[in-house]
């Protein structure tokens, strides 16, 4: 039973972590607290379903198409909408407030468009949802795929951030946005890249959600919350932290559901989250 809990929890955690990767990049590097994050994942999820049902494109291929589209959207959005806010805020703390408000508006906007275009119905596709035996425990193949993508993308990002010059620059912007320009870093460009990359990851996360979960146009905020909890726990902008925090969250939820009471899973999530915030506001793996 313990093994079942462990495996189910890890797989669940993988799907959570995948959802959180994009947000941690957006907030960590671009300093944009994107409350419409969940809506971005939903847009990707709906696109995937439309491509699958309308054009018969297999979801895994669609996912590959969705990621660059997400990057482009994120890039444009940053240039048009976020950049003026960043410029206006200067070094004061008001970017946080402004970005929360602006993306909150974006949340409504996207939700409204989704409702008009796709309607209020629950949407779902059946794709690779047969069980796969992992150490004797049956796990849905599409969730395993999400876990795999999470491991590859997350692991790849961790490596890239630590072993490439590009990664070093990004980390510099994330940690000391004030002094990064002093060493010749184009903060604006890096922030735009961070935001765009975050949006691309949101799209990938949404695409994988579409493969293993039922969703509707009004459910985006749930994804945002989950991602936010993980981002804060893992330390803002910390990819590795988000991976670990996502897995931990999956384990905790599964453990609470099996050993204590399924009614307390969400309460446990928030309790741990608030606990981490109080004990280590910089996140479990943040510096400080």
């Amino acid at each position, binding site marked *: 039973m313990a093994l079942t809990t462990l495996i189910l929890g890890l797989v669940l955690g993988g799907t959570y972590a995948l959802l959180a990767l994009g947000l941690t990049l957006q907030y960590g590097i671009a300093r944009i607290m994107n409350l419409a994050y969940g809506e971005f994942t939903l847009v990707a999820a709906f696109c995937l379903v439309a491509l699958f049902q309308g054009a018969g494109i297999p979801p895994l291929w669609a996912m590959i198409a969705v990621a660059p589209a997400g990057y482009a959207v994120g890039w444009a959005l940053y240039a048009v909408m976020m950049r003026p*806010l960043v410029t206006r805020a200067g070094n004061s703390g008001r970017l946080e407030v402004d970005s929360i408000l602006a993306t*909150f*508006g974006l*949340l*409504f906007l996207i939700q409204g468009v989704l409702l008009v275009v796709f309607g209020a119905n629950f949407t779902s596709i059946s794709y690779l949802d047969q069980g796969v035996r992992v150490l004797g425990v049956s796990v849905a193949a599409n969730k395993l795929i999400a876990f795999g993508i999470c491991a590859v993308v997350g692991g790849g990002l961790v490596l890239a951030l630590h072993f490439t010059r590009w990664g070093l620059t990004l980390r510099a912007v994330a940690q000391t946005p004030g002094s990064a320009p002093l060493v010749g870093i184009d903060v604006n460009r890096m922030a735009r890249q961070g935001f765009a990359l975050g949006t691309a990851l949101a799209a990938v996360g949404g695409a994988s959600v579409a493969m293993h979960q039922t969703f509707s146009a009004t459910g985006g905020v749930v994804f945002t919350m989950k991602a936010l909890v993980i981002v804060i726990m893992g330390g803002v902008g910390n990819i590795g932290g988000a991976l670990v925090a996502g897995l931990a969250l999956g384990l905790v939820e599964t453990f609470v559901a099996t050993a204590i009471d399924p*009614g307390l899973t969400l*309460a446990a999530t928030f309790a741990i989250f*608030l606990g981490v*915030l109080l004990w280590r506001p910089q996140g479990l793996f943040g510096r400080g």
Partner: protein
Amino acid sequence: MLKVVPFLALIALIVLAAVPFAVSDYGLGLLIGAVTYVTLASAWALFSGHTRYISLATVAFYGTGAYTVAVLNEVLPYWAVLAVAALIGGAMALVVGLATLRLAGVYFVIFTFGLAELVRQLITWYEVNVTGTLGRYIFLDITARGIYWQMLGLAAVTIALTAYIQRSRLGLALKVIGDDEVVAAHSGIHLARTKLVAFAASAVILTLAGAIASPRWVYVEPAIVFNPTVSFLTVIMALLGGANRLWGPALGAVPLFLIFEFLSAHFPDTYSIFLGLLFIGVVFALPDGVLAGLDKLKAKRTQPKERTA
């Protein structure tokens, strides 16, 4: 100038209190909604306006107030229920306030948002497992007018309290904290106590607002009373008007409330698209709130004059 404003406010209050006799039920409903949001936004700004701590816990208190009424309305007389609600709100605020003293910036924002969710989850779990009744009924003989007058009174108290605090040492201390906490600490301000007092005062009002509004809903369950939209709307309204001004939150709340009402009536399908565009527009066009925008306009036309609060 300083003497005239309270006088005018008093007259406005009397007029507002008499309005229900002249309007339809729907007009009264509109008034209740508008005054409720004036109260929420002003109470929110009481703490957040000067300290710049963006709290998303509004609905945690508002919902707790409503839920208290739902639980106790058949056990205690109405005034006692209100008193209990205020006490619970205050106690919650002290615990939360003490816990969050170390948090600043976006961490505080997220904490307060999580708090609302946690309270909702815990109440749900408690109701399901301990009392076995989720979904409670409020059958109180309180008319819409009664609710309106109570809410109007609470709004008046909130704004008066804000005016008083802004002129007191507490208000000054809050302003300094908002500018720079380190400076505040060095100038001898007791950070923790100052923040706690303001946070608790704000929370008690928010809780009372929920308690007063709840008889209109009849049926209450956690998913209904802990609706996160309330928190967001409150923030937007206060910021639109200008959160650090006495009348700012009220000035933001009334027009926004009316716009929402207009949109949902005339564009039910595309309401949220308009709402989203409006938000974005506000952030870009009126970053410091309407009042500051007006001041800027004035300053452009005339010589800079002394500012009134």
